[in-house]
């Protein structure tokens, strides 16, 4: 028996894709992904309309979606993150139905709970066998973890694995097992390696970012959480990765043996594992080549599904055991709500991803951001879009001060500890005033009436709505 079929076109036909259906994709191929575009091209060619694309993330490489939105081929998008190109088109009202944003954990959980139904899941697989066992850990388009694709494979009515590295059965070290898979298609390329990962993830040299990172590391130390058993998640960009450097220095200097590092994993976290800072890594997504190599070779570096990483449908998730998470923000308001969805003009350019999942789960959620970015202050009275509720955010660290969310009882002690350490603790309203002294008070963004996106919290409830940008 073989599930191998000849083409994506045959897969579309065999799966019975028709008007009004939902097709899903994962984003481990990141900005090098070719699978979403290949599948949608076939769907469009067949004249199928009114499709909802449910992708764990949409990147700029998925720009062809804009044409399909115009033609009515795609009328809905559901995702955890949306890059600026497609985001701008959606913000202009080009998508018929409001886009639906979920958190990474919420997306998996909604699928598992049955509140988000996928008709056909297309799983880009860097290595697969003819029965559908597949993994991202090796192959010419290796992406490492395939954590976001698990729920799609488990819950979709039909599952198609698309690979550019067909291996003999049974595939060794598979991530997603054949039991979920209906068809396998071999293609020349599922992704462009240059867009899938960066060679190495670099720590910022921006002195402002480094200052913020230093402060963040000091906050972690003052929290009392930086001790044996410490668990930690940080991002790949800006000041957050730099903060990992300072945390690592403190751990090595103090002989602290952490338990696990988690997240999108970078080479820097792999270095921390190898230098004894952690016992293991929990990996839902790899950001660079070093992380991919590590997950393929080191059993301490573990692949997890999005549900296990950050969902609410299981009996627990890894975020519930997390001590500290470092997160970014495009906007923070005086209630500590965070926006990572829209840019300074109100256009969609991001999404929560695991932001609100980890903020909710971690004992200490720290937002790192410069107080002024380009022409605008970071802190406002009310975020243009609430991506992560302030009730889950503990500290905001900027280069000009650290604001502690003391409306959460446990943080009052932390605030005292930071003051005792001589750190510049500032009330968030005062921090807002400092930023506005430099930039002035920005005028509110003019919004249209049409709701172009709904932001769902990790439990599936509506957190906020994003309106069309006025004049678009």
């Amino acid at each position, binding site marked *: 028996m073989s599930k191998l079929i000849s083409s994506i076109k045959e897969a579309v036909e065999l799966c019975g894709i028709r008007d009004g259906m939902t097709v899903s994709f994962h984003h481990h191929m990141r900005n090098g992904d070719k699978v979403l575009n290949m599948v949608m091209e076939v769907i469009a060619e067949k004249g199928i309309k009114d499709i909802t694309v449910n992708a764990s993330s949409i990147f700029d490489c998925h720009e062809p979606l804009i044409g399909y939105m115009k033609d009515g081929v795609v009328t809905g998008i559901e995702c955890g993150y949306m890059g600026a190109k497609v985001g701008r088109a959606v913000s202009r009202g080009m998508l018929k139905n409001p886009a639906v944003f979920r958190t990474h954990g919420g997306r998996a959980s909604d699928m598992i709970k049955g509140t988000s139904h996928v008709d056909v899941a297309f799983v880009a697989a860097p290595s697969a066998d003819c029965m559908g066992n597949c993994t991202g850990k090796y192959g010419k388009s290796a992406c490492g973890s395939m954590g976001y694709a698990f729920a799609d494979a488990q819950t979709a009515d039909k599952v198609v694995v698309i690979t550019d590295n067909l291996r003999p059965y049974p595939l060794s070290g598979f991530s997603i097992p054949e039991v979920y898979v209906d068809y396998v298609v071999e293609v020349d390329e599922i992704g462009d390696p240059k867009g899938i990962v960066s060679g190495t993830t670099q720590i910022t040299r921006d002195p402002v970012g480094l200052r913020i990172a230093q402060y963040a590391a000091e906050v972690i130390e003052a929290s009392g959480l930086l001790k044996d058993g410490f668990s930690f998640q940080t991002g790949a960009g800006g000041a957050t990765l730099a903060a990992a450097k300072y945390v690592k220095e403190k751990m090595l200097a103090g002989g602290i043996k952490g338990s696990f590092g988690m997240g999108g994993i970078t080479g820097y976290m792999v270095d921390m594992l190898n230098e004894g800072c952690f016992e293991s890594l929990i990996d839902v997504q790899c950001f660079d080549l070093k992380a991919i190599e590590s997950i393929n070779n080191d059993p301490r570096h573990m692949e997890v599904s999005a549900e296990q990483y950050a969902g609410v449908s299981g009996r627990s998730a890894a975020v519930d055991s997390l001590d500290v998470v470092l997160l970014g923000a495009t906007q923070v308001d005086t209630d500590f709500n965070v926006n990572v969805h829209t840019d300074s003009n109100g256009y969609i350019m991001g999404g929560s991803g695991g932001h609100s999942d980890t903020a909710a789960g971690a004992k200490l959620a720290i937002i790192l951001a410069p107080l002024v970015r380009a022409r605008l202050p970071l802190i406002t009275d009310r975020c243009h879009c609430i991506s992560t509720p302030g009730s889950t955010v503990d500290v905001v660290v900027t280069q000009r001060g650290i604001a502690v969310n003391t409306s959460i009882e446990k943080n009052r002690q932390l605030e005292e500890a930071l003051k005792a350490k001589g750190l510049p603790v500032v009330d968030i309203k005062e921090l807002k005033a400092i930023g506005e002294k*430099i930039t002035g008070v920005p005028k509110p963004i003019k919004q249209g009436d049409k709701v172009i996106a709904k932001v769902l919290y990790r439990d599936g409830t509506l957190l906020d709505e994003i309106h069309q940008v006025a004049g678009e």
Partner: protein
Amino acid sequence: MRRTMLFVPGNSPNLLMNFDILGADSVILDLEDAVSPAEKDSARILVRSMLQTMGDTGCEVIVRINPVDTDFWKEDLREVVKCCPSMIMPTKVGGPETVKQVADYIGQLEKEYGIPEGTVGIIPLIETALGVENAFAIAGADKRVRAMLLGGEDLTADLRCKRTKEGNEIFYARSRMVCAARACGIDVYDTPFTDVNDMEGLRKDAELAKSLGFSGKSSISPGHVAAINEIFSPTQEEIDYAHEVMDTIEEAKRQGKGVVALRGKMIDAPIVNRAKQVIEMEEAMFGGVRQ
């Protein structure tokens, strides 16, 4: 008293609005080499606006202006003097006449803007062979001169020798500058170490400068600031001793004693001055970043 003087490009809004959080005791906002001729006007307006917006940040501000043989220096001063920077840095200063020229125009502007006379000081940048030879005259050229800075890169070009990390080629210039500055009772600052990634080289260079008598060191990289601060900071032992000296002097005054000894050694004027400098340095530590 400053340990670090960090150069900040006058055309970089992101760094300008954050100059006071980079850890330096003092920043040199640069309108000269960092800014292309086409951007001179916008940079000086940017620097002026930023200084007016930021107000007193606790970090000392110096502005490096364009050379007096260009068309830019007067406009530079016209924009920035109204913000009362601590000092103006004229460049390629070869003799006292350049200092006088700049000092006179600053004085004229102070009058025009209603700023108390002598508010804005001068820190000449010595970066030519002529400047080194005239260092003593430059240091004493005007009462506005409060410090001098050595510029090793341009100097070695003028000396027609190669600039090395060891710095043997500028040893004479360093020593002469320290001597001239101290003779005139002003501070003196060392040239930047230009390899931003060589932290070990930086530390050696800064330790050498300290051993020669420099008050502190300039830097072109925020990444160098912490190491320079550390090297030029007094040790805890030195700080404790300085406080002990001052306490002893105070106690002697109360008791009406003229001459006092500490740990069996007479406390004379140089010891008191040194103690005052150390305490001043202690107070300046952290460049206003820490509360």
